[in-house]
């Protein structure tokens, strides 16, 4: 699942264009993003706070099993690497 600061309407548009079918949640005031210490202050449109890119693989108890906090936002986790980690979940 994904989280961004976009409204459900903008997210719906993005999901349709990109063909995403996973759960995509809206955090318009960056409250959850702030709780996870992932705010990239002022980096959005018109200086809006947005999320830095980050991926967490969480098991069914809610415990983090793998993290990717990229150092450069042009570099993201590869799907095949994440799937390899997901296969290791108990």
């Amino acid at each position: 699942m994904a989280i961004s600061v976009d409204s459900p309407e903008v997210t719906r548009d993005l999901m349709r264009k990109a063909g995403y079918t996973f759960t995509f949640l809206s955090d318009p005031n960056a409250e959850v993003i702030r709780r996870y210490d992932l705010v990239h202050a002022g980096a959005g449109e018109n200086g809006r706070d947005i999320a830095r890119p980050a991926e967490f693989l969480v098991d069914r108890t809610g415990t983090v099993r793998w993290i990717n906090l990229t150092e450069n936002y042009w570099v993201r986790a590869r799907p095949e690497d994440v799937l390899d980690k997901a296969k290791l979940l108990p």
Partner: protein
Amino acid sequence: MRRFNWPLWAGFLLTLVAAFSYFAFFVNFPVTRDFPWANLLLFLLAAVLIVMGIRRAFARDRAHPTRSKVVASIVTTLSVLVCAFFIFAIFIAGRFLPPSTSAPHVGQKVPEFTLSDANGRQVSLNQLTSEPVDGKAPKGVLLVFYRGWW
């Protein structure tokens, strides 16, 4: 008498293509996004053309020697600026990220939350880790924090 300095202009055009094709095209593929080797190759090719163009512009057989040199100098400077902008955007500005030292670590429990999905339905993390998918209990969930529609 040589008139049109095609290598210079082809090199300039290729410089623009090299820079903007990353954002318009190559960014869509992990293999050309994580390291922009395709764009750097295009820049290299553009540089070869521009060097050819400069040699032409500074040759003795130009119809308008001064104009040729001025045009070549301006086009070269613009090309270098475009290339510098690209290098800055990808290798330097891309690293302007907060430290996120308090983000959940491996082995820690992540904070619970409830947010609206794209259809306005309230969804909690607890729900995603417990509700069956295709009749089976999920093994976990991948949380992807996304910069948004930018």
